């Protein structure tokens, strides 16, 4: 056929345009974690906010975990499902302990993972510390906060009595690195 009828060309045009989608090797950001610091936070509003208060109600207490990011390469694309971020040393597990006895069943140095919940920016994006799930939040298929540089640990099982605590957070990364930091001392009332 020497001439393609216009109606056939228009019919196939959307399929032609849809096939021009970019290569599988397109990426947005390649990065790794190279440090961490933690601080006390309080969850009075829509999400926890770091605080320097030395006495915080246990019903609102949270630990803010801040991660230091080292970006290796920046791609051309916005982060979305076709152009995901690439983290070279993802978080494998986490351990929260305290320098003081937390309660009668949780002496100093024991795991307090079951007392906390991981909050990743939204109450629809939470997980336990033993099955940690940290995913970029999305907005219309684009990844908002595609590089996770912070998250919060909400205290969901407070101690029975007022107590003074100093929490230590250890992050175990998939490449074997362990990041450690401790909060300031805080009174949970």
């Amino acid at each position, binding site marked *: 056929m020497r001439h393609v009828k*216009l109606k056939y060309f*228009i019919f196939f045009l959307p399929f032609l345009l849809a096939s021009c989608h970019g290569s599988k090797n397109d990426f947005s950001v390649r990065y790794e974690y190279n440090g961490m610091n933690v601080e006390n936070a309080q*969850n009075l509003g829509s999400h926890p906010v770091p605080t320097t208060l030395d006495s915080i109600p246990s019903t609102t207490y949270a630990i803010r975990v801040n991660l230091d990011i080292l970006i290796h390469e920046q791609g051309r694309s916005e982060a979305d499902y076709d152009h995901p971020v690439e983290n070279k040393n993802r978080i494998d597990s986490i351990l929260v302990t305290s320098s003081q006895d937390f309660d009668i069943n949780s002496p100093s140095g024991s795991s307090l993972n079951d007392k906390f919940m991981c909050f990743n920016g939204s109450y629809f994006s939470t997980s336990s510390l033993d099955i940690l799930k940290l995913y970029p939040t999305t*907005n219309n298929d684009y990844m908002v906060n595609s590089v996770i540089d912070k998250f919060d640990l909400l205290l969901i099982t407070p101690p029975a009595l007022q107590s003074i605590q100093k929490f230590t957070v250890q992050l175990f990364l998939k490449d074997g690195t362990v990041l450690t930091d401790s909060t300031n001392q805080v009174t949970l009332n």
Partner: protein
Amino acid sequence: MKFSVLTYLLLICAVANAQQINDTTKTIKRSDTSRKVFAYFQFSSGMNIENSSNTPSLPYGIDIAQNSLKNGYYIFAGGSFVIKEKTDLSLQITFRTQTRDNDFFNEGFKNRYPSEEILHLEEMKKPYRLGVQLSYARIFNIKSILLAPKIGIGAFVVNQVEYEYVVRTPHTNYFDLYRASNNPKAEFPVSFGFNITHEKFKWILFTSEVGYSKNQNRYSVYHIKVDQSYKEPPIEELQVNHDRVYFSFGLILNLHIEE
């Protein structure tokens, strides 16, 4: 996206018809009186207006979800056989949608939990219906106006719709996450309406119809705990029925199929 699909369909029909109008005119001029059946491809789009559910108060905001649904649009594509210019039999694949009144939905939940903080997922599925519809129409030529009253029957599947919300004790770490999932049963609407056009412009018709079907919804509500699998047993299961009446109107583009 729906408007780009409609634009695309209108464009291809306009181009195809522009090429075929001359051929059709030549066919008419030859006055082929032995021709009894004409076949057409049809594309149509328009408004889909539905009656309100008026569901009474139910747990977990199910009535709020039911009563927040609003009008949407429809699209269909199919074929039509016009027999002796008197009878029109058509079979269409139809897609009907509804939208959700988000302000009504959010306010409803706030009023249902006045002492607690309510949070909603931003993205929430909207209901749609996809199915086939068979129609029979009788064509009357009234001073060059072609009026075709029609009746129809259809079979439609309705998509699963769900919503999530969080009830939080204000200013604390304590909250509950609920997910309500609706698995509606298939529907078999009956309808009546009419198509109208001028005999010189058979390639475009105005169409309107009213339809009725029994809308049966099966809601399952899950209390999502941290790390809980979505497949845990629901905490509540409810059947909510609704007499659904819809009214739709739009334009049909007729693409004559040459033998």
